[in-house]
């Protein structure tokens, strides 16, 4: 859950990029790191705990300070999980304290089973943290739209966005930074709306 630090006047929010291996999660963070417009000192280093072949081993981590709302600095911490199936325990660790999720799906036809498996794995891992997909904000990103033999968006929606409440989805080509900012801004919007709704129901102490 996000941390509201009344003393430091900070709101800290954790967003996790989830999805199958080689789907473009790390690429999303690399593009954000390279292209996000921030003031001095508002963007941290992109830290990658990766294997020698550049596959994510533990997580990637990018802290960004976004804006000040009524005196509170909003600090976003962006994480990726390792997509490879064998690293499920690591994915569970990274999900701890998550506020919002970006599910990065690979648009190639042959990757559809992996997309579905990863999405189901997300739901299961959230369950171990007593979180339901019905209550946590998340968005879908259909990445690699520039490759040949990609599945139609309607088909991917049918596979991944078929729950009772449909969530926002974006097509993307993360390697060209297309759709990357749109996706992040949407999950940010959902998260902030959620906090507003929560605050509206809570009494303010004297």
């Amino acid at each position: 859950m996000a941390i509201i630090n009344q003393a430091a006047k900070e709101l800290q929010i954790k967003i996790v990029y989830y999805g199958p291996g080689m789907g473009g999660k790390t690429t999303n963070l690399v593009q954000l790191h390279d292209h996000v417009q921030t003031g001095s000192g508002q963007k941290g280093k992109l830290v990658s705990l990766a294997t020698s072949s550049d596959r994510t081993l533990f997580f990637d981590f990018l802290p960004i300070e976004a804006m000040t709302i009524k005196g509170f600095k909003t600090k976003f911490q962006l994480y990726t999980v390792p997509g490879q199936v064998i690293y499920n325990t690591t994915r569970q660790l990274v999900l701890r304290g998550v506020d919002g999720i970006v599910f990065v799906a690979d648009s190639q036809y042959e990757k559809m089973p992996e997309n579905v498996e990863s999405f189901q794995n997300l739901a299961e891992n959230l369950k171990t943290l007593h979180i339901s997909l019905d209550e946590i904000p998340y968005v879908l990103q259909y990445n690699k739209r520039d490759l040949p033999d990609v599945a139609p968006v309607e088909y991917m929606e049918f596979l991944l966005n078929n729950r009772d409440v449909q969530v926002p989805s974006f097509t993307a080509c993360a390697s060209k930074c297309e759709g990357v900012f749109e996706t992040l801004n949407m999950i940010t919007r959902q998260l902030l709306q959620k906090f507003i709704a929560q605050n509206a129901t809570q009494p303010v102490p004297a």
Partner: protein
Amino acid sequence: MDTLPQLIEEDVKRLDDMLRWFMVGTDATIALIIDKGGFLITFRTGNNMAEDLDVTTIAALASGAFMANQTIANLVHESNFNSIYQQGDNNSMFVTNVDNNCLLVVIFRSATGIGPIKFYASNTVNQIAAQMKVAKDRKPGAGVDLSALNLVDTRAVFQRKQN
């Protein structure tokens, strides 16, 4: 899921005081209180810190390392892996459990040795846990009034640099 309580100014001031006393006793380089999800709560630096440390990243990595250690403990059916200690040539690191939500991270000169760090940390950890319980029992409902943000247009949140 159990989560970190909201902290008010008084909480953080007391946590800072605890860290200050810890630093006096141990002469550590830096001590951080972090959330197990990787968030930094507060930190204090010592007199011997020569350079600015990236405390945000240290918090994220230390929580990841500790939680990975906890998972190994579960795998080997060990209930008492409650700290990790990494000794280096010049600097060492000690991470210890505070409660369900928090960790204390200490980076110190290796010449100091782990003894005094563990000795002072045991008391500080109890104090931190007690303060967190106070914060949790208080259940402050105060949040951030985000209504000032125009959520219809979130393009202003993260913008791409113009090349």
